[in-house]
Protein backbone atom coordinates (compact mmCIF):
# COMPACT_ATOMS: atom_id res chain seq x y z
CA UNK A 1 0.00 0.00 0.00
CA UNK A 2 1.01 3.60 -0.61
CA UNK A 3 3.04 4.94 2.32
CA UNK A 4 0.79 7.98 2.46
CA UNK A 5 -2.23 5.77 3.13
CA UNK A 6 -0.28 3.70 5.67
CA UNK A 7 0.48 6.84 7.63
CA UNK A 8 -3.06 8.20 7.47
CA UNK A 9 -4.51 4.84 8.47
CA UNK A 10 -2.33 4.86 11.56
CA UNK A 11 -3.00 8.47 12.41
CA UNK A 12 -5.33 10.50 10.20
CA UNK A 13 -4.42 13.67 12.05
CA UNK A 14 -0.79 13.65 10.93
CA UNK A 15 -0.27 17.03 9.31
CA UNK A 16 0.61 17.39 5.64
CA UNK A 17 3.93 18.91 6.73
CA UNK A 18 4.79 15.90 8.92
CA UNK A 19 3.74 13.39 6.25
CA UNK A 20 5.90 15.28 3.78
CA UNK A 21 8.91 14.79 6.04
CA UNK A 22 8.21 11.09 6.48
CA UNK A 23 7.90 10.29 2.79
CA UNK A 24 10.39 12.84 1.45
CA UNK A 25 7.85 14.92 -0.43
CA UNK A 26 6.66 18.53 -0.15
CA UNK A 27 3.55 19.48 1.83
CA UNK A 28 1.93 20.67 -1.38
CA UNK A 29 2.51 17.27 -3.01
CA UNK A 30 1.03 15.55 0.00
CA UNK A 31 -2.03 17.80 -0.04
CA UNK A 32 -2.53 17.15 -3.74
CA UNK A 33 -2.24 13.40 -3.36
CA UNK A 34 -4.66 13.33 -0.47
CA UNK A 35 -7.11 15.44 -2.45
CA UNK A 36 -6.83 13.00 -5.35
CA UNK A 37 -7.51 10.04 -3.06
CA UNK A 38 -10.54 11.84 -1.64
CA UNK A 39 -11.83 12.66 -5.09
CA UNK A 40 -11.42 9.09 -6.27
CA UNK A 41 -13.26 7.86 -3.20
CA UNK A 42 -10.27 5.80 -2.04
CA UNK A 43 -10.23 7.81 1.17
CA UNK A 44 -13.83 7.67 2.38
CA UNK A 45 -13.47 9.80 5.47
CA UNK A 46 -11.60 10.44 8.70
CA UNK A 47 -12.84 9.63 12.16
CA UNK A 48 -11.64 9.11 15.69
CA UNK A 49 -11.35 5.67 17.29
CA UNK A 50 -13.32 6.31 20.46
CA UNK A 51 -13.38 3.96 23.39
CA UNK A 52 -17.10 4.03 24.18
CA UNK A 53 -16.45 2.54 27.61
CA UNK A 54 -14.93 5.87 28.63
CA UNK A 55 -18.08 7.81 27.87
CA UNK A 56 -21.10 8.32 30.08
CA UNK A 57 -23.78 5.80 29.18
CA UNK A 58 -24.18 6.56 25.53
CA UNK A 59 -26.10 3.66 24.20
CA UNK A 60 -25.67 0.01 23.35
CA UNK A 61 -24.38 -2.02 20.47
CA UNK A 62 -25.78 -5.39 19.53
CA UNK A 63 -24.49 -7.99 17.12
CA UNK A 64 -27.40 -9.71 15.39
CA UNK A 65 -27.29 -12.91 13.41
CA UNK A 66 -30.05 -13.06 10.84
CA UNK A 67 -31.25 -16.01 8.80
CA UNK A 68 -33.07 -15.02 5.64
CA UNK A 69 -34.88 -16.78 2.82
CA UNK A 70 -32.80 -16.34 -0.35
CA UNK A 71 -34.81 -15.48 -3.43
CA UNK A 72 -34.76 -17.37 -6.72
CA UNK A 73 -33.49 -14.33 -8.49
CA UNK A 74 -30.91 -12.11 -6.81
CA UNK A 75 -30.31 -14.44 -3.84
CA UNK A 76 -29.68 -12.44 -0.67
CA UNK A 77 -29.18 -9.08 -2.30
CA UNK A 78 -32.66 -7.59 -2.20
CA UNK A 79 -33.33 -8.37 1.43
CA UNK A 80 -29.76 -7.46 2.41
CA UNK A 81 -30.07 -4.05 0.81
CA UNK A 82 -33.33 -3.48 2.56
CA UNK A 83 -31.89 -4.33 5.97
CA UNK A 84 -28.70 -2.35 5.47
CA UNK A 85 -30.78 0.75 4.75
CA UNK A 86 -31.93 0.94 8.39
CA UNK A 87 -30.14 3.78 10.19
CA UNK A 88 -29.74 1.57 13.25
CA UNK A 89 -27.52 -0.84 11.27
CA UNK A 90 -23.92 0.44 11.30
CA UNK A 91 -22.06 -2.56 9.85
CA UNK A 92 -23.38 -5.51 7.96
CA UNK A 93 -21.86 -8.57 6.31
CA UNK A 94 -23.08 -11.61 4.36
CA UNK A 95 -21.64 -14.67 6.10
CA UNK A 96 -20.98 -18.32 5.42
CA UNK A 97 -22.16 -20.79 8.07
CA UNK A 98 -25.19 -21.15 10.30
CA UNK A 99 -26.74 -17.78 9.58
CA UNK A 100 -26.65 -15.45 6.62
CA UNK A 101 -26.30 -11.84 7.68
CA UNK A 102 -24.31 -10.34 10.52
CA UNK A 103 -25.47 -6.91 11.68
CA UNK A 104 -23.97 -4.42 14.08
CA UNK A 105 -26.83 -2.37 15.46
CA UNK A 106 -26.59 0.71 17.65
CA UNK A 107 -29.38 2.05 19.84
CA UNK A 108 -29.86 4.39 22.75
CA UNK A 109 -31.11 1.71 25.13
CA UNK A 110 -31.41 -2.03 25.33
CA UNK A 111 -35.13 -1.64 24.89
CA UNK A 112 -34.73 0.48 21.77
CA UNK A 113 -32.59 -2.21 20.15
CA UNK A 114 -34.98 -4.94 21.28
CA UNK A 115 -37.93 -3.18 19.73
CA UNK A 116 -36.00 -2.54 16.52
CA UNK A 117 -35.35 -6.26 16.28
CA UNK A 118 -38.79 -7.47 17.18
CA UNK A 119 -40.90 -4.84 15.46
CA UNK A 120 -38.94 -3.85 12.39
CA UNK A 121 -36.32 -6.44 11.59
CA UNK A 122 -37.96 -9.77 12.47
CA UNK A 123 -41.19 -8.73 10.78
CA UNK A 124 -39.63 -8.20 7.36
CA UNK A 125 -40.67 -10.62 4.65
CA UNK A 126 -37.86 -13.08 4.11
CA UNK A 127 -36.36 -12.84 7.61
CA UNK A 128 -36.57 -16.32 9.08
CA UNK A 129 -34.93 -15.81 12.47
CA UNK A 130 -32.68 -13.50 14.46
CA UNK A 131 -30.21 -13.97 17.31
CA UNK A 132 -29.24 -10.88 19.28
CA UNK A 133 -26.06 -10.46 21.35
CA UNK A 134 -25.30 -7.29 23.29
CA UNK A 135 -21.74 -6.07 23.51
CA UNK A 136 -20.47 -5.64 27.05
CA UNK A 137 -16.98 -4.23 26.78
CA UNK A 138 -14.53 -3.26 24.03
CA UNK A 139 -11.03 -4.66 24.32
CA UNK A 140 -9.76 -3.88 20.85
CA UNK A 141 -11.12 -1.74 18.04
CA UNK A 142 -9.77 -1.79 14.49
CA UNK A 143 -6.49 -3.24 15.66
CA UNK A 144 -6.07 -0.82 18.54
CA UNK A 145 -6.09 -2.09 22.13
CA UNK A 146 -8.44 0.06 24.20
CA UNK A 147 -7.05 -0.10 27.66
CA UNK A 148 -3.33 -0.52 27.68
CA UNK A 149 -0.81 2.20 27.98
CA UNK A 150 2.46 0.54 27.24
CA UNK A 151 5.36 1.95 29.17
CA UNK A 152 8.84 2.13 27.73
CA UNK A 153 10.98 0.27 30.21
CA UNK A 154 14.13 0.14 28.11
CA UNK A 155 17.34 1.65 29.42
CA UNK A 156 17.27 5.34 28.51
CA UNK A 157 20.69 5.33 26.90
CA UNK A 158 22.54 2.28 25.63
CA UNK A 159 25.25 1.56 23.07
Amino acid at each position, binding site marked *: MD*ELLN*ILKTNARTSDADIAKM*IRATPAEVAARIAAYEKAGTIRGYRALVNADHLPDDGVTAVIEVKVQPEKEGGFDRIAKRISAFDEVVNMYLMSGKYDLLLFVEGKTLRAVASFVSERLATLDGVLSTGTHFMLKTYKLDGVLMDVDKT*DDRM*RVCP
Partner: protein
Amino acid sequence: MNGKSRVAAHVRALPFSGIRKFFDIVAQRKDVISFGVGEPDFDAPRAVRDVAKTSLERGETHYTSNRGDPELRRAISRYVARQFGATYDPDTEILVTVGVSEAIDVALRAVVNPGDEVIYHEPCFVSYRPTIVMAGGVPVCVETRREDQFRLTRAMLEKAVTPKTRVLMLNFPCNPTGAVLLQKDVEDIADFCVKHDLLLLTDEIYAELTYDSKHFSFIAVPGMKERTIFLHGMSKAWAMTGFRIGYACSPAEISENLMKLHQYAIMSAPTTGQMAAAEALDHGDEAVAEMRAEYNRRRNYLIAAFAEMGIPCHTPAGAFYAFPYIGDLGISAEEFALRFLEEKGVAVVPGDAFGACGAGFLRCAYATSMDNVREGMKRMAEFVAEIRAEKKQ
Protein backbone atom coordinates in the same frame (compact mmCIF):
# COMPACT_ATOMS: atom_id res chain seq x y z
CA MET B 1 46.50 -4.99 50.39
CA ASN B 2 48.63 -1.91 51.09
CA GLY B 3 46.28 0.23 48.99
CA LYS B 4 47.13 -1.79 45.92
CA SER B 5 44.29 -2.68 43.61
CA ARG B 6 43.39 -6.32 43.24
CA VAL B 7 42.22 -5.65 39.69
CA ALA B 8 44.60 -6.65 36.94
CA ALA B 9 46.54 -3.74 35.52
CA HIS B 10 45.50 -4.28 31.92
CA VAL B 11 41.84 -4.32 32.95
CA ARG B 12 42.24 -1.23 35.10
CA ALA B 13 43.82 0.47 32.11
CA LEU B 14 40.68 -0.18 30.06
CA PRO B 15 38.59 3.01 29.96
CA PHE B 16 34.89 2.96 30.89
CA SER B 17 32.60 3.44 27.94
CA GLY B 18 31.88 7.11 27.26
CA ILE B 19 28.24 6.27 26.85
CA ARG B 20 28.05 4.98 30.39
CA LYS B 21 28.72 8.34 31.96
CA PHE B 22 25.93 9.77 29.91
CA PHE B 23 23.64 6.94 30.89
CA ASP B 24 24.10 7.80 34.56
CA ILE B 25 23.15 11.42 33.96
CA VAL B 26 20.07 10.60 31.90
CA ALA B 27 18.94 7.97 34.39
CA GLN B 28 18.44 10.66 37.02
CA ARG B 29 15.89 12.54 34.95
CA LYS B 30 12.21 11.80 34.54
CA ASP B 31 10.12 12.15 31.40
CA VAL B 32 12.96 12.22 28.97
CA ILE B 33 12.45 11.83 25.24
CA SER B 34 15.41 9.63 24.44
CA PHE B 35 17.23 9.36 21.15
CA GLY B 36 19.91 7.57 23.12
CA VAL B 37 18.61 4.03 23.01
CA GLY B 38 20.52 1.65 20.74
CA GLU B 39 17.82 -1.01 20.72
CA PRO B 40 14.44 -1.29 18.99
CA ASP B 41 11.38 0.26 20.65
CA PHE B 42 9.28 -2.57 19.21
CA ASP B 43 8.77 -5.71 21.23
CA ALA B 44 9.83 -9.00 19.64
CA PRO B 45 7.18 -10.25 17.19
CA ARG B 46 4.23 -11.99 18.86
CA ALA B 47 4.84 -15.34 17.14
CA VAL B 48 8.44 -15.32 18.35
CA ARG B 49 7.35 -14.72 21.93
CA ASP B 50 4.75 -17.47 21.64
CA VAL B 51 7.39 -19.95 20.51
CA ALA B 52 9.50 -18.99 23.52
CA LYS B 53 6.56 -19.58 25.84
CA THR B 54 5.74 -22.92 24.31
CA SER B 55 9.36 -23.95 24.60
CA LEU B 56 9.32 -23.13 28.32
CA GLU B 57 6.05 -24.97 28.80
CA ARG B 58 7.57 -28.02 27.17
CA GLY B 59 10.31 -27.91 29.76
CA GLU B 60 13.08 -27.01 27.33
CA THR B 61 15.10 -25.54 30.17
CA HIS B 62 18.39 -27.35 29.63
CA TYR B 63 21.69 -26.67 27.88
CA THR B 64 21.74 -27.11 24.13
CA SER B 65 24.74 -28.47 22.28
CA ASN B 66 27.72 -26.13 22.63
CA ARG B 67 27.46 -25.00 19.05
CA GLY B 68 23.78 -24.23 19.46
CA ASP B 69 20.56 -26.12 18.87
CA PRO B 70 20.88 -28.07 15.58
CA GLU B 71 17.45 -26.92 14.39
CA LEU B 72 18.48 -23.28 14.89
CA ARG B 73 21.80 -23.82 13.13
CA ARG B 74 19.94 -25.21 10.14
CA ALA B 75 17.60 -22.19 10.21
CA ILE B 76 20.62 -19.88 10.30
CA SER B 77 22.19 -21.71 7.38
CA ARG B 78 19.00 -21.40 5.32
CA TYR B 79 18.56 -17.74 6.23
CA VAL B 80 22.14 -16.71 5.50
CA ALA B 81 22.03 -18.50 2.17
CA ARG B 82 18.82 -16.85 1.08
CA GLN B 83 19.64 -13.35 2.35
CA PHE B 84 23.37 -13.03 1.88
CA GLY B 85 24.28 -15.56 -0.76
CA ALA B 86 26.75 -17.87 0.99
CA THR B 87 26.15 -21.39 2.25
CA TYR B 88 27.48 -22.52 5.62
CA ASP B 89 27.42 -26.04 6.99
CA PRO B 90 25.29 -26.04 10.16
CA ASP B 91 27.41 -28.81 11.70
CA THR B 92 30.87 -27.35 11.22
CA GLU B 93 30.68 -23.67 10.24
CA ILE B 94 28.04 -22.04 12.44
CA LEU B 95 28.28 -21.14 16.14
CA VAL B 96 25.36 -19.72 18.12
CA THR B 97 26.51 -17.10 20.65
CA VAL B 98 25.19 -14.85 23.41
CA GLY B 99 24.49 -11.95 21.09
CA VAL B 100 26.92 -10.56 18.56
CA SER B 101 28.71 -9.16 21.61
CA GLU B 102 30.02 -12.57 22.56
CA ALA B 103 30.70 -13.46 18.93
CA ILE B 104 32.98 -10.42 18.57
CA ASP B 105 34.85 -11.38 21.70
CA VAL B 106 35.45 -15.04 20.84
CA ALA B 107 36.26 -14.21 17.24
CA LEU B 108 38.98 -11.75 18.20
CA ARG B 109 40.41 -13.97 20.90
CA ALA B 110 40.48 -16.88 18.48
CA VAL B 111 42.39 -15.19 15.68
CA VAL B 112 44.60 -12.50 17.22
CA ASN B 113 48.14 -13.32 18.26
CA PRO B 114 49.72 -10.96 20.79
CA GLY B 115 50.83 -7.83 18.96
CA ASP B 116 48.81 -8.46 15.80
CA GLU B 117 47.30 -5.31 14.39
CA VAL B 118 43.56 -5.14 13.93
CA ILE B 119 42.21 -2.40 11.69
CA TYR B 120 38.76 -1.07 12.61
CA HIS B 121 36.88 2.12 11.80
CA GLU B 122 35.68 4.93 14.04
CA PRO B 123 33.14 6.19 14.95
CA CYS B 124 32.11 2.67 15.91
CA PHE B 125 30.29 0.50 18.40
CA VAL B 126 31.76 1.06 21.86
CA SER B 127 33.04 -2.47 22.43
CA TYR B 128 35.28 -2.72 19.38
CA ARG B 129 38.48 -1.13 20.62
CA PRO B 130 38.42 -2.62 24.16
CA THR B 131 37.67 -6.08 22.78
CA ILE B 132 40.63 -5.90 20.43
CA VAL B 133 42.85 -4.80 23.32
CA MET B 134 41.60 -7.57 25.62
CA ALA B 135 42.32 -10.10 22.88
CA GLY B 136 45.95 -8.94 22.92
CA GLY B 137 45.68 -7.14 19.60
CA VAL B 138 46.85 -3.68 18.67
CA PRO B 139 43.90 -1.58 17.54
CA VAL B 140 44.55 0.50 14.44
CA CYS B 141 41.79 2.98 13.85
CA VAL B 142 40.70 4.34 10.47
CA GLU B 143 38.54 7.44 10.73
CA THR B 144 35.50 7.68 8.49
CA ARG B 145 34.24 11.10 7.50
CA ARG B 146 31.03 12.95 6.78
CA GLU B 147 32.31 13.96 3.32
CA ASP B 148 32.35 10.25 2.42
CA GLN B 149 28.96 9.56 4.00
CA PHE B 150 31.02 7.74 6.66
CA ARG B 151 31.82 5.00 4.17
CA LEU B 152 35.15 3.27 4.35
CA THR B 153 37.29 3.36 1.25
CA ARG B 154 40.13 1.22 0.08
CA ALA B 155 42.44 4.22 -0.01
CA MET B 156 41.95 4.80 3.73
CA LEU B 157 42.72 1.17 4.44
CA GLU B 158 45.83 1.12 2.29
CA LYS B 159 47.23 3.87 4.53
CA ALA B 160 46.59 1.90 7.71
CA VAL B 161 47.84 -1.52 6.67
CA THR B 162 51.28 -2.76 7.80
CA PRO B 163 53.05 -6.12 7.68
CA LYS B 164 51.64 -6.76 11.17
CA THR B 165 48.02 -6.30 10.17
CA ARG B 166 46.14 -9.52 10.59
CA VAL B 167 42.45 -8.66 10.87
CA LEU B 168 40.08 -6.10 9.39
CA MET B 169 37.01 -5.53 11.54
CA LEU B 170 33.97 -3.86 10.01
CA ASN B 171 30.44 -2.88 10.88
CA PHE B 172 28.16 -1.80 8.04
CA PRO B 173 25.38 -0.70 8.30
CA CYS B 174 27.14 1.19 11.04
CA ASN B 175 26.35 2.05 14.62
CA PRO B 176 26.58 5.05 15.30
CA THR B 177 26.72 6.70 11.85
CA GLY B 178 24.02 4.83 9.94
CA ALA B 179 26.49 4.51 7.07
CA VAL B 180 26.29 1.64 4.59
CA LEU B 181 28.71 0.32 1.99
CA LEU B 182 27.73 0.05 -1.64
CA GLN B 183 28.48 -3.10 -3.62
CA LYS B 184 31.48 -1.40 -5.21
CA ASP B 185 32.93 -0.49 -1.78
CA VAL B 186 32.44 -4.05 -0.58
CA GLU B 187 34.19 -5.49 -3.64
CA ASP B 188 37.08 -3.05 -3.30
CA ILE B 189 37.57 -3.79 0.37
CA ALA B 190 37.29 -7.53 -0.26
CA ASP B 191 40.02 -7.19 -2.84
CA PHE B 192 42.12 -5.27 -0.33
CA CYS B 193 41.75 -8.16 2.15
CA VAL B 194 42.88 -10.65 -0.44
CA LYS B 195 45.83 -8.55 -1.51
CA HIS B 196 47.11 -8.19 2.06
CA ASP B 197 45.99 -11.67 3.10
CA LEU B 198 43.80 -10.36 5.93
CA LEU B 199 41.08 -12.08 7.85
CA LEU B 200 37.81 -10.14 7.72
CA LEU B 201 35.59 -9.88 10.78
CA THR B 202 32.33 -8.40 9.59
CA ASP B 203 29.56 -7.45 12.02
CA GLU B 204 26.45 -7.19 9.84
CA ILE B 205 23.95 -7.04 12.68
CA TYR B 206 21.98 -4.23 10.96
CA ALA B 207 21.94 -5.91 7.52
CA GLU B 208 18.13 -6.00 7.24
CA LEU B 209 17.78 -2.35 8.20
CA THR B 210 18.77 -0.52 5.03
CA TYR B 211 16.46 2.01 3.44
CA ASP B 212 17.77 3.13 0.09
CA SER B 213 19.32 -0.04 -1.30
CA LYS B 214 19.49 -3.70 -0.36
CA HIS B 215 22.39 -4.72 1.84
CA PHE B 216 25.32 -6.31 0.03
CA SER B 217 27.31 -8.67 2.22
CA PHE B 218 31.01 -9.41 2.11
CA ILE B 219 30.27 -13.12 2.02
CA ALA B 220 28.54 -12.62 -1.34
CA VAL B 221 31.90 -11.76 -2.90
CA PRO B 222 33.47 -14.89 -4.45
CA GLY B 223 36.54 -16.00 -2.53
CA MET B 224 35.70 -14.09 0.66
CA LYS B 225 33.98 -16.85 2.61
CA GLU B 226 37.31 -18.59 3.24
CA ARG B 227 38.80 -15.55 4.95
CA THR B 228 35.74 -14.15 6.69
CA ILE B 229 34.06 -14.46 10.06
CA PHE B 230 30.53 -13.28 9.45
CA LEU B 231 28.65 -12.07 12.53
CA HIS B 232 24.94 -11.52 12.78
CA GLY B 233 22.22 -11.75 15.38
CA MET B 234 18.59 -11.34 16.33
CA SER B 235 18.84 -8.18 18.43
CA LYS B 236 18.17 -5.45 15.93
CA ALA B 237 16.04 -6.37 12.92
CA TRP B 238 13.88 -8.79 14.93
CA ALA B 239 13.78 -6.60 18.04
CA MET B 240 15.06 -9.47 20.18
CA THR B 241 17.78 -7.79 22.25
CA GLY B 242 16.71 -9.45 25.49
CA PHE B 243 16.84 -12.95 24.02
CA ARG B 244 20.62 -12.60 23.65
CA ILE B 245 21.17 -14.58 20.46
CA GLY B 246 23.85 -13.98 17.85
CA TYR B 247 25.88 -16.20 15.59
CA ALA B 248 29.21 -16.51 13.84
CA CYS B 249 29.65 -18.16 10.43
CA SER B 250 33.21 -19.04 9.48
CA PRO B 251 35.35 -21.73 7.84
CA ALA B 252 35.37 -25.00 9.80
CA GLU B 253 38.86 -24.64 11.22
CA ILE B 254 38.11 -21.21 12.64
CA SER B 255 34.63 -22.22 13.71
CA GLU B 256 35.78 -25.15 15.83
CA ASN B 257 38.19 -22.87 17.64
CA LEU B 258 35.51 -20.26 18.23
CA MET B 259 33.47 -23.11 19.59
CA LYS B 260 36.25 -24.08 21.96
CA LEU B 261 36.39 -20.61 23.52
CA HIS B 262 32.61 -20.39 23.62
CA GLN B 263 32.33 -23.78 25.26
CA TYR B 264 34.74 -22.92 28.07
CA ALA B 265 33.29 -19.47 28.74
CA ILE B 266 29.59 -19.89 28.07
CA MET B 267 28.60 -23.58 27.59
CA SER B 268 25.68 -22.71 25.33
CA ALA B 269 23.58 -19.68 24.36
CA PRO B 270 20.23 -19.27 26.18
CA THR B 271 17.94 -22.12 25.17
CA THR B 272 14.66 -20.17 25.13
CA GLY B 273 16.25 -17.52 22.96
CA GLN B 274 17.52 -20.13 20.53
CA MET B 275 14.05 -21.58 20.02
CA ALA B 276 12.64 -18.09 19.48
CA ALA B 277 15.42 -17.23 17.02
CA ALA B 278 14.65 -20.23 14.81
CA GLU B 279 11.05 -19.07 14.50
CA ALA B 280 12.15 -15.52 13.72
CA LEU B 281 14.56 -16.59 10.99
CA ASP B 282 12.10 -18.94 9.31
CA HIS B 283 8.95 -16.82 9.57
CA GLY B 284 9.94 -13.30 10.55
CA ASP B 285 10.41 -11.52 7.23
CA GLU B 286 7.08 -9.74 7.34
CA ALA B 287 7.55 -8.47 10.88
CA VAL B 288 11.00 -7.20 9.94
CA ALA B 289 9.60 -5.42 6.88
CA GLU B 290 6.95 -3.68 8.97
CA MET B 291 9.47 -2.42 11.49
CA ARG B 292 11.81 -1.31 8.72
CA ALA B 293 9.00 0.70 7.10
CA GLU B 294 8.35 2.50 10.37
CA TYR B 295 12.07 3.19 10.96
CA ASN B 296 12.24 4.60 7.46
CA ARG B 297 9.44 7.11 8.13
CA ARG B 298 11.21 8.26 11.27
CA ARG B 299 14.55 8.47 9.49
CA ASN B 300 13.09 10.56 6.69
CA TYR B 301 11.48 12.81 9.28
CA LEU B 302 14.78 13.36 11.08
CA ILE B 303 16.66 14.14 7.89
CA ALA B 304 14.02 16.70 6.88
CA ALA B 305 13.96 18.20 10.38
CA PHE B 306 17.75 18.62 10.49
CA ALA B 307 17.66 20.23 7.05
CA GLU B 308 15.04 22.71 8.27
CA MET B 309 17.23 23.57 11.25
CA GLY B 310 20.24 24.05 9.01
CA ILE B 311 22.06 21.20 10.81
CA PRO B 312 24.19 19.21 8.34
CA CYS B 313 23.57 15.48 8.32
CA HIS B 314 24.68 12.88 5.80
CA THR B 315 21.87 10.58 4.68
CA PRO B 316 22.01 7.63 7.08
CA ALA B 317 21.06 4.73 4.84
CA GLY B 318 21.02 1.96 7.42
CA ALA B 319 20.62 0.86 11.07
CA PHE B 320 18.47 3.21 13.18
CA TYR B 321 20.87 6.04 13.83
CA ALA B 322 21.25 9.53 12.41
CA PHE B 323 24.55 11.32 12.99
CA PRO B 324 24.05 15.07 12.54
CA TYR B 325 26.92 17.55 12.79
CA ILE B 326 26.47 20.37 15.32
CA GLY B 327 30.09 21.56 15.29
CA ASP B 328 29.12 24.79 13.55
CA LEU B 329 27.07 25.92 16.55
CA GLY B 330 30.17 26.72 18.54
CA ILE B 331 29.62 24.22 21.34
CA SER B 332 30.95 20.72 21.83
CA ALA B 333 28.75 17.67 21.33
CA GLU B 334 29.01 16.90 25.02
CA GLU B 335 27.91 20.38 26.06
CA PHE B 336 25.09 20.23 23.52
CA ALA B 337 23.93 16.87 24.85
CA LEU B 338 24.09 17.93 28.51
CA ARG B 339 22.27 21.20 27.96
CA PHE B 340 19.70 19.72 25.57
CA LEU B 341 18.85 17.19 28.26
CA GLU B 342 18.80 19.80 31.03
CA GLU B 343 16.88 22.50 29.19
CA LYS B 344 14.58 20.51 26.90
CA GLY B 345 14.41 17.02 28.40
CA VAL B 346 15.74 15.30 25.29
CA ALA B 347 18.62 12.79 25.33
CA VAL B 348 21.11 12.37 22.48
CA VAL B 349 24.58 10.84 22.71
CA PRO B 350 27.72 12.90 21.96
CA GLY B 351 29.43 11.47 18.90
CA ASP B 352 32.84 11.25 20.56
CA ALA B 353 31.52 8.45 22.78
CA PHE B 354 32.12 6.36 19.63
CA GLY B 355 35.63 7.55 18.89
CA ALA B 356 37.50 10.85 18.88
CA CYS B 357 36.53 11.65 15.29
CA GLY B 358 32.89 11.66 16.38
CA ALA B 359 33.54 15.03 18.05
CA GLY B 360 31.00 17.61 16.92
CA PHE B 361 28.41 14.96 16.02
CA LEU B 362 25.40 13.61 17.87
CA ARG B 363 24.07 10.08 17.66
CA CYS B 364 20.29 10.22 17.42
CA ALA B 365 18.74 6.76 17.56
CA TYR B 366 15.29 6.75 15.99
CA ALA B 367 14.22 3.61 17.77
CA THR B 368 11.49 5.64 19.43
CA SER B 369 7.90 6.43 18.51
CA MET B 370 6.93 8.84 15.75
CA ASP B 371 5.33 11.08 18.39
CA ASN B 372 8.65 11.23 20.22
CA VAL B 373 10.52 11.88 16.99
CA ARG B 374 8.22 14.77 16.17
CA GLU B 375 8.26 16.31 19.64
CA GLY B 376 12.01 15.74 20.04
CA MET B 377 12.76 17.49 16.75
CA LYS B 378 10.50 20.39 17.66
CA ARG B 379 12.47 20.87 20.87
CA MET B 380 15.75 20.50 19.03
CA ALA B 381 14.77 23.27 16.61
CA GLU B 382 14.01 25.53 19.58
CA PHE B 383 17.23 24.61 21.31
CA VAL B 384 19.37 25.16 18.21
CA ALA B 385 17.75 28.57 17.70
CA GLU B 386 18.51 29.49 21.32
CA ILE B 387 22.14 28.43 21.00
CA ARG B 388 22.51 30.46 17.82
CA ALA B 389 20.99 33.51 19.49
CA GLU B 390 23.35 33.11 22.46
CA LYS B 391 26.40 32.89 20.23
CA LYS B 392 25.41 36.01 18.33
CA GLN B 393 25.37 38.20 21.43
